[in-house]
């Protein structure tokens, strides 16, 4: 069984957020809701300044704090490492949102779905078609595009990334590109001090 993980190549990422929009169309996300996005930070003093673009998503932690705090077992980890939320079990208590050190969970408020992407209270056919997957009031987050992965495809954000800054693969396979990149370019996990053992690595 593969253990899925992702590597972000910070040398490649241009902060364009094509990933964020691809995710929105793949997962029918309402306005203001992101399963992935790229942050940016200015570094240094003029004139030796640069800006770092930092892609983020659910880290699918091996020891996921969100799962630990979930009172109903709605948050669970698939055997392949993908951390999921079962909308039928989620009671919307928000514990996981507080517990996630990476700010990667969103409580799906009913008005987010009702307001519509164009903010006029009417849903486009795209939204009417896609919002059926959501249970208002529950927690949502990135699933590594689990259905695509199950079908042998790349997550939508990975497939679209113009600079190939997102590399997805099997962390347990010593021959995988993700493993090679983590080894060769010293991949770092976000906030290692939280001991969550993320399945997401950054290389620069």
């Amino acid at each position, binding site marked *: 069984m593969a253990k899925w993980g992702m590597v972000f190549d910070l040398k490649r990422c*241009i902060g364009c957020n094509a990933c964020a*929009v691809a995710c929105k169309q793949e997962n029918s996300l309402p306005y203001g809701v992101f399963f992935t996005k790229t942050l940016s930070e200015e570094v240094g003093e003029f004139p030796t*300044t640069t800006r770092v673009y930092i892609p983020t998503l659910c880290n699918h932690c091996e020891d996921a704090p969100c799962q630990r705090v979930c009172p109903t077992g709605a948050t669970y980890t698939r055997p392949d490492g993908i951390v999921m939320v079962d909308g039928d079990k989620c009671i919307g208590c928000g514990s996981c949102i507080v517990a996630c050190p990476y700010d990667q969970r969103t409580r799906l408020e009913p008005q987010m779905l009702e307001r519509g992407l164009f903010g*006029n209270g009417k849903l486009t056919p*795209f939204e009417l*078609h896609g919002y059926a997957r959501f249970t208002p009031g529950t927690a949502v987050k990135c699933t590594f595009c689990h259905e695509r992965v199950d079908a042998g*495809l790349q997550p939508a954000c990975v*497939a*679209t990334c*113009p600079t190939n800054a997102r590399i997805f693969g099997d962390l347990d396979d010593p021959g995988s590109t993700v493993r090679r990149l983590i080894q060769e370019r010293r991949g770092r996990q976000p906030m290692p001090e939280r001991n969550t053992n993320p399945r997401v690595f950054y290389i620069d």
Partner: protein
Amino acid sequence: MGAETQPVQNSMKPGKWLNSTCKMCLHSCNIRVHVSEDGIVNKIEGDPTSPSNNGRMCPKGNAAIMRHYDPHRFKSPLKRTNPEKGPGVDPRWQPISWDEAYDIVGRELKRVMQEDRRKLLCAINNFQKLFLWAWPAALGNANYFSSVGNFCGGGYHPMNGFIHSAFAAANDVNYCNYWINNGGGDGFSSHLHTAAQAYHMANARVERNMRVVVVEPRLSIGAAKANEWVPIRPATDRQFALSLCHVLVNEKLCDVKFLKKETNAPYLVGPDGYFVRNEDGKIYVWDAGENRPKPWDDPSIEEFALEGSYEVEGKECQPAFQKFKDILEDCSPEKLEKTTTVPAATARRIAREFAKAAQIGSSIEIDGRVLPLRPAAYNFYRGAQGHKFSAMANQSFKLVNMLVGNIDTPGGHVGATLDDQNQDIRGGAGQVNAGENGMLKTAPHQLHPEVPFSYPPNETHLMGYFPIGVDPGHLTQLTFFQPEKFGMNYTPDTMLLCHANPLWNLTGRREDWYRIMRAMRFIVAIDIVPNESNEWADVILPAHDLLESWNMTMIEPPHHEGMCLRQPATPPLYDTRSEEEIFYEISERLGVLQIWNQILNFVNGFVMRPELMLEADGKYSDQEIAERKGLLWNGKDLNWYREHGHAVTPRRPDKWYRPWQGMRLHFYIEDILKARDDLKQKMEAADVAIRHEWEWADYQPLPTGVLDPVHLEPSEYDLYAITYKDIQINFGESLSNPWIDDIVFKDPVHTSLLMNRKAGLARGLQDGDIVEVASPYGKIVGRVALSEGVHPDAVCVSNALTRVATQHTGVRTGGGNFNDLLPANLQHTDACSGQPETVAKVRVKKIASVPAQQLTGNTVFAQRRRH
């Protein structure tokens, strides 16, 4: 709903995939569109079979579905019922039938044709259907009421035509090892096929360690990813390039063999600036071997002199190279450091690194052909070239490249054609032809044939006075408000807009543009969603969007070629039509159907294959035109294209690298002087009064270091305002799209006016202060953010902050249009190319709060989105 029963992810749902082509910017990335079983377009992805975008897409392309389902779309033909027109004023549209709409438009346009066809102002901006641009020609009209050059390249495109006989140019990412980016976003944020370029560029950067040096006033995406960011004072890019040329020439870091044998650098230039010719018209060079002049093609020439002063046929003369060397005396990095603020040592180092990386003398064999390998190149675009002396700016960047012999070489600076048409030839305006005296025939007219001189001017934007450049749409302001001065004997009163938003893109004061709009008796707009300009229309003719229509094109790809199919993914959502149908119907009502078909045959290249020619009285659908374009490219019909999606391949080396081999390139552009003197003579003959104010000094065969006049504004304007786009809003409207809105207004560089931290603090400004930014011509307001990524002299205004109120309530209004800061006058327009200055000298003043009128509605100043 459980995952085990019904997929929740859109691309996994039952449905079908269709091959198509993106149109969220003007370029043409290959896509595949997923349509669910219930007919919903629910996912668009890049086409993985495309060697250009490789299955990748930019954020705009990813957001196309929200254009399709935008509830603000024009859903049927509309007629205005509110006689009052103004910015943000509701036209109170009334739906009408297509028959009624066509009849009104036909009647009104017929009236203007009968009265005076020059009174029609057209703005047709659909790049993927370039043939539409030619429609006014069917009426004998060449007005252009929009900007092309302002925000792309007034001087850029003609200069590419002079140097490469091509529309655009890019650095060759396949082999380049040292890439200078000056005021352009290639490979990072904007310009040519962004998703494709970003992919190839990232591979070159990361896998080959290609060094990237970005020269810009602002820490752009490119600058952030570069090995080196060189902050530069705005509007001094030309001086920076000339300082590099100074080092390359004076430290003898040039490809001398190339300059002598493959350019006109050794041609002798006389005191009048023209080449010295013998009685047969042959241009002289100086043979340093025998120390005497000879015609350029004399087989006995031992050594072409590049330097020295000579006398030939009684004329003092010098090789063109020497002329440039003389100019460069005043352009040392040390002398220009005060202008550019780039430390002399930095400019010298970059010039040396560039020359070293160019590997002058090296070669590479590609497909059995030995080519010079010059893996260093200087790329540039709007920010660097958008200045008063634009032709000179463009030429200075080209000369950095030419001095190291990298023009159209592997790894070098390579011309890119606009729309190749036919795979057997390098077609359209990109054809390479031999000119006189061994030189390449220059092709500065890349968008349309030269518009003939006329007086009184037939064009409100004076296009007949720009024998070289791209349409200076902003000059309509001059002729409209000062008709006597320009000898105008008509007043425009009718307008046709097609996928155009001139009220957003034209320089000059909005209030003046509004006065022109108010003076229009009738305006028709062909468009998809409301914008600043089409809300002034009397009739709207709604067009299909990219998911409902047919097309075939390949626009301006740097490294690839081959037609790309657009096909409908769904039937039209609303009562919309194709542009093809709309223009055919109007043409028929105006009695110009035959000439329109003739024009279509010409501009689409159907004349190359007589069996594809449109019949004079025919009216053809978008599908029929698309099929012909596909057949013209590679003989394949629509079934083939529907299966394959595209015919994209890497550009073929024989047609891409040095297609002019055997001809000499224009180091020195005598044609610019010819154009000047021809225009001067025509103006004299016609006694055109404006010739006394015409900016004759703008026509130079070689660039000089003279300052652009923007630097000479009164000293109280102590900062330079620049504007920029990034990849989310690159090329064309996407701010009305909620997915784009969602990412743009979370990005700190698009939410505030950016100023250098120290420079802001020195002016008493803090993060979040509201300021008024005033130039001598206009003002805007904004919220300040202090940044270490901004040149101390610059105020940077994202294009996302420049919208004004429209009928599309999804568009956030900003603190005024940046273009109000810029003058629409001759003094700040390059007479040689039509390019207006795009940098404004400004002063920044803290104000108490955002003016009330800018706080109403959905604004960038609001904390939350409002609709």
